[in-house]
């Protein structure tokens, strides 16, 4: 077998858009020497450096931690949210997963509730507003009881942690044919519904968050499961089932 190459030549089709109300389109660029050890965002850094040296505008893209936890990076890569590898974010994708001569199409997350800000950057503030509607436990600083007063079984703590692992990247929205934020909302509702601390607010939480989600213009859930497949943290659609139960419960109990 021939040794795999250590650098790649790539053709990139990258989305360019000056602002939310402006028309957008793809620009084609070529990169000659992309190291297989680079991350995908480092490859975009190289592209931007190349554009700068040619006196052209670099592409705007969101990123910060570059280690898969802040949820800032996004991108649809060759039609796939966060690229071809399962359970990682774009910043964790490494170029060794591409081949010499590949063409890569790079687009922003697309959804009505996530308008483009510029190029590959979108506005995800709608997700913050869903959380603001009820994605928390209302305990003021200073009023908490002793931490060990309320035992939580490891199984429950683990399941709550699985849900709480959501990084709020909006990949689930971008992957969903209906642009629904159901998995995002379900992850938070489920995390808090599982824990005994979350119980006092169960009667209103799910209802308030789902209403907010609808108001923001996200679509409904029709069980396509694309969200779970795209989720970099493998948040399960089982949490959507729990959200539905919580929603029913709060629709009955929380309206008063």
């Amino acid at each position, binding site marked *: 077998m021939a040794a795999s190459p250590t650098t790649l030549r790539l053709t990139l089709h990258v989305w360019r858009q000056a602002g939310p109300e402006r028309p957008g389109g793809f620009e084609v660029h070529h990169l000659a020497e992309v*190291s297989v*050890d*680079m*991350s995908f*965002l*480092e490859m975009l*850094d190289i592209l931007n*450096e190349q554009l*700068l*040296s040619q*006196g*052209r505008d*670099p592409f*705007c893209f*969101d*990123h*910060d*931690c*570059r*280690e898969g*936890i*802040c*949820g*800032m990076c996004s991108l649809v890569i060759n039609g796939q949210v966060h690229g071809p590898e399962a359970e*990682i974010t774009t910043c*964790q994708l*490494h170029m*060794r997963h591409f081949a010499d001569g590949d063409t890569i199409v790079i687009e922003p997350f697309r959804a009505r509730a996530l308008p483009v*800000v*510029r190029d590959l*950057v979108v*506005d*995800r*503030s709608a997700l*913050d507003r869903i*959380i*603001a*509607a009820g994605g*928390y*436990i*209302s*305990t003021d*600083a*200073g*009023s*908490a*009881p002793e*931490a*060990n007063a*309320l*035992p*939580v*079984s*490891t199984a429950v*703590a683990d399941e*709550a*942690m699985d849900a*709480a692992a959501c990084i*709020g990247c909006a990949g689930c929205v971008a992957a969903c044919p209906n642009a629904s934020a159901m998995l995002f909302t379900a992850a938070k509702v489920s*995390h808090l519904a599982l824990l005994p601390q979350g119980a006092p607010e169960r009667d209103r939480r799910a209802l308030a968050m789902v209403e907010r989600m609808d108001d923001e213009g996200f679509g409904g859930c029709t069980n396509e499961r694309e969200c779970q497949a795209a989720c970099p943290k493998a948040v399960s659609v089982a949490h959507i089932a729990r959200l539905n139960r919580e929603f029913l419960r709060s629709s009955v109990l929380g309206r008063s």
Partner: protein
Amino acid sequence: MSAASDRLDARCPGGDMATRWTRHKFDLDLINPANRRGFHVIVVGTGLAGGSAAASLAEMGYSVTSMCIQDSPRRAHSIAAQGGINAAKAYRNDGDSVHRLFYDTVKGGDFRARESNVHRLAEVSNQIIDQCVALGVPFAREYGGTLANRSFGGAQVARTFYARGQTGQQLLLGAYGSLMRQVHAGRVNLLPRREMVELVVSGGNACGVIARNLVTGEYERHAADAVLLCTGGYGNVFRLSTNAQASNVTAAWRCHRRGAFFANPCYTQIHPTCIPVSGAHQSKLTLMSESLRNDGRVWVPSRAGDERAPGDIPEAERDHYLERRYPSFGNLVPRDVASRAAKRVCDEGFGVGATGTAVFLDFADAIARDGRTAVEARYGNLFQMYEMITGEDPYRVPMRIFPAVHYTMGGLWVDYNLETTVPGLFALGEANFSDHGANRLGASALMQGLADGTFVIPATITAHLAGRSFERVDVGAPAFAEAEAEARARNDRILGVGGGSTVTSLHRELGQCMWNLVGMSRSAAGLGEAIERVRELRDRFWADVRVPGEANHLNPSLEHAGRLADFLEFAELLATDALSREESCGGHFREEHQTAEGEALRNDEDFCHVAAWEHGALGSTRHTEPLTFEEVHLVTRSYK
């Protein structure tokens, strides 16, 4: 040598250490709940410090404005912390106590922290855990349902609470939830994608900030009765660090230029367990949590230049140099000790990997002892992260690790109330200097961020708001106009240079200079050279930087350029501070000051003080705050 300054009154309460905080809270003025709404506080930053401060103050009834660089407050750099958070709960029945956590932190900080502050930190640590659990942070649990703990670098007790390898994320999401609750209640005005570019000072008091809306490019004026700076650390002055890309010194530096003293900038922490650099394209370094050292064994081949695969090197030909040199702490010695030891073996030619700048962190023994499942349960996501980045499977091949810049103990000087030398300006979290001395122990930054924001500032902010009279200044005042004009002029000047060097390439040069000459090991000659090179680079930046586009739209190159411009000023102060501190302590290692065995040599005679720098048109002036140790006796740190 600089003399003790009367500008640096730490306002620490005296008397019995254990009751200082309680007495101080009693002595502070209170503000009637009904009157709090009339006070407006700006909180810059939404990490653990800023997020919890904004939420807590709003819960109490204050009117709060909260801003951050990212598109959501949930993405602050605190999110990336992996390992855990300390507290003196003593749930393990292993002899832990508030006093021991206090003692360990003072000692771990190599006797360069203020005792009163550290004691308070240890005291409120337990309340933090209570609060986080109440907010639904899914901490790891024992089978009986109680909270689990692990031990972390530098401690012989298990006092670290954790949520898998995502403790920072879970804590931050807790604080973020509380913050969003207050946003919903209309008590917090949340401004994401904003960068604070100037502090506004009028009549000697902080009275607001100038922020740039990063999407529209507009400059905004925000007035307030107090400003809390919670903007994190400055590790990116080295360019490559474990910090997030947007981490910066700009906010702190702008405050410094308007009168806030900058304390101990040379105290930087290098983390021993990071993934080594793979090439020039590298944009950040990834930390492998220090908790790995609980089960991983650090070693290099006993023979320099041994190129055999690690599995082919028999036990007898491996040097577990930490276990050998520090028998009682072994692989768990503090970060600075572990980092320098790694550098030393690599400098001597024992390093491994393609570049020779790495050591092994081996889990074979842990897997043999506890089974792969147990190891996976503890570190699964870290192992996965390692494999993703390097393409190697750490269950089969030992990890390769090397130190990287991780945390900065230095920061704005603050008194016991967390107030800087500019009245009305407070600094919290990593942005201040107060609690970790010359070296921070693992799992205590998260503790400090939440302590400052949740329990300290809600009590101490009244020192300004109620304790003194100050004039309200509105955004039409000349101080705002002048500060805004300066911020605009700076960005316009950057856009106008139109040279040939990209911001990234200049930042890379700065980083190389700082890492090589002001990094793990420093000398007078190297520091002098660094200062020269930083000045030259600063001149080159202003003569030759190239930033495309305009100021009136999302322009990441312009943001980066502004931050680099401030790093280029700050870097000189960092090196100058390192040069003037003629001793080795904690994360600051001067080659001239070491024992025959290469251990750090502190100089308590001349340097048992905080160095706080005042900005001036003609250069910086060094002031000192003497440190006294009443409870923990000054001794040489020993981890033998």
